[in-house]
């Protein structure tokens, strides 16, 4: 896997896109960071509200109504995919050997699998919920896993700057 990642990094770094991104104006990187931080706040705030509802908080509010907020999380995630791709394409060697970055990828995979499981298997259980009723254990687990995974993504992402291997 490591050598596969290395050959991919070498290929990516040689592409014209990567070289153009790497040579972009000095304000481009800070701007992408700002987009990344605003996006993470939108993502964590709105996904977090839904996760807390799945955990059984503010039960009087219909789950489907809180779920409407996850659209904001999708927008925040889109901002972070765009700015994150910019970082990786511009400076792929800063990430490919960085354990914090791989931890972030792992947490992202957990969050993604959790969403896939929720959308395919669990979301049907929402309609059956009576107002004010406690959420079933399966939804609680999905909510808790989501909170943990996104916190993991954020924390390991922030640590990327501090665990540069050399």
């Amino acid at each position, binding site marked *: 896997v490591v050598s596969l990642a290395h050959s991919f990094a070498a290929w990516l770094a040689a592409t014209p896109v990567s070289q153009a991104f790497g040579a972009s104006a000095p304000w481009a990187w800070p701007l992408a960071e700002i987009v990344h931080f605003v996006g993470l706040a939108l993502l964590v705030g709105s996904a977090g509200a839904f996760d807390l509802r799945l955990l059984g908080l503010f039960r009087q509010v219909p789950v489907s109504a809180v779920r409407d907020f996850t659209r904001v999380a999708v927008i925040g995630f889109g901002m972070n995919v765009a700015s994150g791709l910019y970082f990786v394409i511009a400076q792929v060697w800063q990430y490919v050997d960085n354990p914090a970055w791989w931890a972030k990828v792992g947490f992202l995979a957990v969050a993604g699998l959790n969403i896939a499981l929720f959308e395919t298997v669990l979301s049907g259980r929402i309609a059956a919920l009576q107002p004010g009723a406690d959420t079933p254990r399966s939804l609680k687990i999905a909510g808790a896993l989501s909170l943990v995974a996104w916190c993991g993504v954020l924390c390991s992402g922030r640590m990327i700057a*501090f665990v540069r291997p050399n």
Partner: protein
Amino acid sequence: LLSWLQESALATWVAESDRFYGYSGILTLHTLGLAVVVGASAVLDLRVLGVAHRMPLASLRHVSRPMWIGFALNATTGAILFAAAAVIKGTQWIFYAKLGLIASALLVDGRLRRRLFGDRAEADGPGPSPAKRLAVLSLVLWTGAIVAGRLMAYME
């Protein structure tokens, strides 16, 4: 005063520790707190602006709780991070801009919550209501605080 602060035992340890619970860990907590404060505030602002309108506004009455938890975390971690580099940060205009933006955002959020949930809460008529203007202002000010905070890393 700034250099005295920076040379205090805690500040020196934070600045020089390469442990994960040193500078990097505290900065990570500061980022987590940012997500909680700004995220919770944005949820209320966007609901006021019509996003997820099926959600009863009254159910967001307690959105200030996670906000204050996140704010307490960030006031604490922010003070420690400031102490660790007090001489540089204390002379950066962008740092004071960030503090001003945060203070304004908190004031705007407080006014918005009083308008929505206070004893004299008013029902909004059609058109751009005062609550909607406060919600837009809140989003702008928090975004500005993030911009200023990020730029602190780039300014002299």
